[in-house]
């Protein structure tokens, strides 16, 4: 049914679920008129069902919730701890936050997460780029500009989450990716020609064969509904766009999905369904999974992307690891973004060795002392 085909009745409407209270809102997913209490109930119940049907958690597991201080992760933390209590999941929940070192943006949102720690009673761990890699995003942007900064941040954050999860000794990481995000990703992968990712991007659990599996309990939850929930429950969250993100490719998909939602709300779920149903041959060439030679992190190449990027930063070669063509650089013997000569590492520089520190699984970063 088209969104504008329902005639508007004058006078107060009753909630279509309990038919007792006055309807306070229209559900973005179904356009049903519903009261606040029933909205909370149906919102939480749907997520509970997703968790059950997909067997996301097991009793006794330690779960880290990726917490940025934004609406998705705040609502996720709130709902998960609520459901954990109500339905006795038996989970040990933690908040895991990543400090990229973006002044004016991240420090504000981190304050939010610290408040969440108190409000929800969930222990918080913050891992920072500065500690892990020796660089903050501010410093990175100063060096490489605004062009490929998202590359660095995204790659570093993924590893940072895994490292933080390892430090917390958790069994899984839960992230607040919602239905809109996943629908956007499906479209993006079609537009970008990435058939390998297309086959994986709708999975509700990923990385099961890697260090820490991740799950997305909000896979079928609409972004608008998350916002509504946070608004009505008066949850504490921080909402601003990252200051280093110019409008970009995902923006196209996002615009489109917003327009789509207006004329057919269920289209978001339909996109996800299509993504799940795509007939992709299992013999399609997928990247082979190995480990990084420098730090031991999961990688399909000899060095993981983070190591390559870091090397570039440390050597003043901001383009290292960026883009597809990796030409030969005459003065540093670089092939495929990997430095072959270790002697080229300067004194005082952060570098990686092949030695893996037994205390933490992936670390191998040291300051060079010649």
């Amino acid at each position: 049914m088209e969104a504008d085909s329902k005639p508007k009745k004058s006078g107060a409407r009753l909630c279509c679920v309990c038919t007792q209270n006055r309807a306070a809102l229209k559900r973005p997913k179904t356009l049903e008129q519903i009261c606040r209490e029933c909205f909370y109930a149906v919102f939480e119940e749907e997520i509970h069902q997703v968790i059950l049907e997909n067997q996301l958690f097991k009793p006794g597991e330690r779960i880290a919730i990726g917490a940025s201080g934004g609406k998705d992760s705040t609502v996720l933390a709130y709902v998960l701890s609520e459901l954990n209590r109500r339905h006795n999941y038996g989970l040990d929940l933690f908040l895991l936050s990543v400090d990229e070192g973006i002044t004016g943006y991240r420090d504000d949102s981190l304050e939010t997460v610290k408040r969440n720690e108190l409000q929800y009673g969930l222990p918080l761990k913050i891992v920072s780029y500065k500690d892990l890699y020796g660089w903050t995003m501010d410093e990175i942007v100063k060096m490489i500009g605004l062009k490929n900064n998202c590359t660095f941040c995204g790659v570093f954050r993924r590893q940072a989450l895994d490292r933080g999860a390892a430090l917390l000794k958790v069994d899984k990481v839960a992230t607040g990716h919602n239905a809109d995000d996943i629908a956007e990703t499906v479209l993006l992968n079609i537009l970008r020609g990435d058939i390998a990712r297309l086959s994986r991007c709708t999975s509700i659990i990923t990385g099961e064969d890697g260090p820490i599996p991740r799950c997305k309990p909000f896979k079928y939850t609409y972004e608008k509904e998350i916002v509504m929930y946070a608004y009505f429950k008066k949850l504490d969250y921080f909402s601003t766009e990252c200051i280093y993100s110019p409008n970009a490719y995902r923006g196209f998909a996002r615009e489109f999905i917003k327009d789509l939602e207006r004329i057919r709300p269920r289209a978001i779920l339909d996109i996800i369904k299509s993504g799940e149903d795509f007939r992709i041959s299992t013999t399609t060439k997928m990247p082979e999974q190995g480990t990084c030679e420098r730090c031991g992190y999961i990688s399909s190449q000899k060095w993981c992307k983070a190591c390559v990027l870091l090397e570039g930063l440390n050597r003043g070669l901001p383009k290292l690891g960026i883009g597809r063509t990796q030409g030969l650089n005459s003065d540093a013997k670089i092939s495929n973004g990997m430095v072959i000569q270790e002697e080229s590492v300067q004194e005082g520089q952060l570098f990686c060795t092949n030695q893996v520190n037994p205390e933490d699984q992936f670390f191998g970063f040291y300051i060079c002392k010649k």
Partner: protein
Amino acid sequence: MACNSSTCNSSGCYKGYEEEEQPKPNTKAAVNGGNSCQNLCVKCKVNEPVCCGIGGENSRFCKDCFKNNLYGKFKQAVTYNAMITPPDKVLVAFSGGTSSRVVLQFVHEMQYKAQKNYDANKDKSLPVFGVGVAFIDESSTHSFTSLHIEKAIEDIRLIVSNLAPPSKELFVVPIESIFSSDGIDGKERLKELLDAVSDVTGKEDLLIRLRILLLQKIASENGYTRIVLGTCTSRIACHVISATVKGQGYSLSADIQYVDSRWEIPVVLPLRDCPAQELNTLCSLDGLKIVELLNGPCSGINGLVSSFVKVLQEENPSRECTIVRTAGKLTPFHFNRVPEIHDSNVPSATRRHQKRYTLKPNGSLSSDSFCPICSSPLKKSNFPSSLRSHGNQQNPDLIASACSSCQFQILPKDPSLMEEFLSVLPQQMITKAKHGDQGDFSLLREQIQEFLLSDGENEI
């Protein structure tokens, strides 16, 4: 959660290991030979270029090379997929737009060449394939003045008659003849049917289905063996997105291949590799007349997807090709190839060629069932729940066997209206629902063909 960088190139940012994105036209490709090449056609390097392909500045062609390039894509698609063989009678669906004008032109040129060869050849062993043209008059669904539509039909007759020799039969058929009762009766029924569909997108999609059914009808009643559509890359790109958006990800790969043999008469898409922009350029270069029928812009989901793809194209002219290429990596269905030729009149070389090049059947011979309304193959585990058939015991088959997309956007929401709806659907769709699982038997039959003694089709 989102990467917001427009030019982000990392592998963490959706540009994957296997991305085959074509280079943007404004990247400085290595210019070999310096300035002298810039004013010459990139193909023959002799003539002055008069137009650009979608590669922008890097693909400037002279008129002949441009045309040959396009025709070459057409010819390759036809040969590689054995779309048209000598004994075939080919029905070209002509809407009046640029794509169908070009495909008509190319099919004609191919036929013309074949005719010349035949005339020049002494032993006359290879007959020339026949070509017919079908135009579907949808004026009863729009508010055109009858003058407008009559002029359009006149123009079309002129175009077709000018494409002789060899002469081609033209069928001008009103859309309401799908109901096999003509005149007012058909018009009324069509109007009732379309009015019963409240969703705008559902209406448009249903109309597309009716169009295909009608083409099938015309083809089979007049002995045609192939239906040629002028569907181009751009239209396929839009279809990929809109099918994804409607939840039809499973059946998507069935609609976008070169050949679609789901129906009685196989449908072929020889212009699949040609972008609309190039087809438009060809029409203006060659002075190919088109008949603008202004069927009205698409609205609803289809219109939205169209504008979306247009925006993407403006940002990167090779986006449509990338979309089609990605979707091309999805596994097709067993019916996405021409049926095997058992006709001994067809030269064995052609038959061997076809066997070699057509797609292998997809693994297990699953007997796909199809949605009776849109003919999309249904995923086994996705059998729609029979919740909707509660209110309607008489026709649970149709409702239960329709795909989720048709259930949502075409079938009436109110169960009490279902009976009435079914009464105005074309007979072909109802019949399909009753004999749902017939899809795969032809393929099974092919396998055991040589051992069958009886010639009858009615053992099932």
